[in-house]
């Protein structure tokens, strides 16, 4: 059975770590900032759902170590391929938070420029983004660039054919892709036992001839160490890595879900014990890097982010209806021109005509 990489215990004490370099404490302090802000972002998004300002929000509460770890493992010029659950990673990677929420406010399908940020649109159809990641990495390699692509997916998504095809392509083409599976134990209501009969998802690496690592996904230090290695391997031309992060979705799948139907409060409580935030906090307090002043500062930054998101989302104005037609093709077809004209006429006729 694949051994799990863990560098910090749940109480923040440092564990033996022979094969993996423990990250610089300063780096972990930076990450802690991300965790605090990410947690606050998740909470803010939840309340925007309650206020009806987001259609839905798939929270990553409990998975923030993966979110921040993924974004922080990448260098400038690297690419991130997120799913619907990875908004915190997207924001950490530099996408303006309100743009990252555009999908969920219902204003447009993707609110940011993927090329400018090297962050692909958040993928909803499961596992479909993984072959794209391979293509992006392959293009870079063809041009001799050392770009690395980090692609995220969930445990459920590993069952899809596209997961298989992407990992296999990456291995065959020695593509610079890090596949990070956030195994949060559920695909909506369906438990991991329905996704695999293997001991771990990392076991799949062998079948692709690809190095695979199982990491404690709630241990920010371990996530960082493992992803650093995988990114370095990819950047140096040694190909892809499969990383399975053992983590847990502390909240329901989305606000529309009722997690009580399929899992126990006890299970949630157990995983709350392994929450990455207090874990890293305890470690950093121990090192002396984190004191009350710094903590207050972070709280403030988190509140600032939250208020920025609140205000930004409230200030959003949906695109003009005409936008429906402008970017379907580079040049509108005769058919679309006719349809755009029809809508335009309707809108100018205005209300009350009938």
């Amino acid at each position, binding site marked *: 059975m694949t051994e799990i990489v863990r560098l910090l215990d749940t109480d923040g004490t440092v564990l033996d770590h022979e094969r993996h370099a423990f990250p610089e404490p300063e780096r972990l302090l930076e990450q802690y900032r991300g965790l605090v802000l990410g947690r606050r972002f998740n909470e803010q998004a939840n309340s925007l759902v309650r206020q009806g300002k987001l*259609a839905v929000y798939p929270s990553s509460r409990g998975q923030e170590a993966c979110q921040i770890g993924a974004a922080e493992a990448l260098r400038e010029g690297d690419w991130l391929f997120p799913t619907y659950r990875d908004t915190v990673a997207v924001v950490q990677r530099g996408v303006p938070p309100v743009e990252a929420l555009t999908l969920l406010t219902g204003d447009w399908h993707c609110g940011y420029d993927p090329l400018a940020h090297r962050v692909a649109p958040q993928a*909803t159809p499961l596992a479909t983004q993984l072959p794209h990641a391979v293509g992006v990495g392959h293009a870079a390699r063809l041009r001799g660039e050392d770009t690395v692509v980090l692609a995220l997916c969930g445990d459920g998504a590993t069952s*899809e054919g596209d997961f298989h095809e992407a990992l296999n392509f990456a291995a065959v083409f020695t593509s610079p892709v890090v596949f990070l599976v956030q195994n949060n134990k559920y*695909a909506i209501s369906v438990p991991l036992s*329905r996704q695999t009969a293997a001991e771990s998802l990392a076991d799949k690496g062998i079948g692709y001839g690809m190095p695979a690592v199982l990491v404690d996904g709630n241990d920010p230090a371990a996530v960082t160490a493992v992803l650093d290695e995988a990114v370095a391997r990819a950047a140096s031309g040694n190909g892809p890595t499969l990383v399975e992060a053992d983590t847990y979705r502390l909240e329901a799948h989305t606000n529309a879900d009722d997690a009580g139907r399929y899992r126990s409060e006890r299970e949630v409580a157990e995983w709350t014990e392994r929450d990455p935030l207090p874990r890293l906090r305890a470690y950093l307090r121990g090192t002396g890097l984190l004191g009350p002043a710094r903590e207050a500062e972070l709280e403030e930054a988190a509140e600032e982010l939250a208020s920025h998101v609140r205000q930004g989302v409230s200030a959003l104005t949906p695109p003009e*209806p005409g936008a429906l037609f402008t970017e379907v093709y580079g040049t509108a*077809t005769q058919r679309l021109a006719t349809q755009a004209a029809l809508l335009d006429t309707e809108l100018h006729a205005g209300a009350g005509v009938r």
Partner: protein
Amino acid sequence: MSAEKLTMAAAINTALRDAMRADDSVLVFGEDVGPLGGVFRVTEGLADSFGAARCFDTPLAESGILGMAIGLAMNGMRPVVEMQFDAFAYPAFEQITSHLAKMRNRTRGALRLPVVVRVPYAGGIGGVEHHCDSSESYYAHTPGLTVLAPATSADAYGLLRAAIEYPDPVIFLEPKKRYFASEETDIRAPVAPIGTAELRRAGRDATLIAYGPSVPVALAAAEQAAAEGRELGVLDLRSLVPLDEHTVTEAVRATGRAVVIAETPGFASVAAELAALIGERCFHHLEAPVRRVTGFDIPYPPPKLERHHLPSIDRILDAVDELQWEYA
């Protein structure tokens, strides 16, 4: 049992329940259909009532689900699978077109596949991308598939029971936005068989032809037109394949004017088929060109813009206005 208020979701749940009770070989499976009861709660309680062998969750893989259903049907079962949302059936497209649709024909009738594929489909629920596709035209275009699109709770019940008893594969399109619309209905009342359209409202001036989510919109448009002095008939297709060509042509011949209404992008769609068919069969009865009021030929819009895309009462009535009444 007589008429009671029933949502379409409840009607479908009851149909599944009754079918499972009537026939041990009926199996319900897919993603989240077990303990959760489906993301729309359509399979609620089935796992409890019939056990995990009859109603179960699978690994998350639509092609695998469809493929497994085909195998189960090859070996005596009657699988009813759920594709969680319209666009998430696309990974199963090869299984559907190359096997599900063709097996009977390929084996000259030796292997029949009584599989029902339930697809919550179409828009109007404020869903984000990939959750609101009108995918009916892909299926209706594929020979070998029977494609149903109920608009009412009663039809949802009756057609689903008929679909499960059918010897051949059925794509069963459930209009999401009707799931929780509740209506007075007697689900045990007999329902017209697969392949028959139903005139929901008579009207001598023009015929509105609709199915699934567009039927209530068409009825509302007809209601409003009546207030304005025009009598519009409303034909509910119920079944896209087989299409009740006879009833369609009769209804249009009776009025000489037709508007086809559907959420699907219109290009090369079921709506195009209807316009083409009417043009072919009713040529000398038509007083005006057949008009299509469909979704635009664009990817399904984001939630805040979807109302501009969907056939609306106004857009339907505008189309009716343009049916060259000056020539009447």
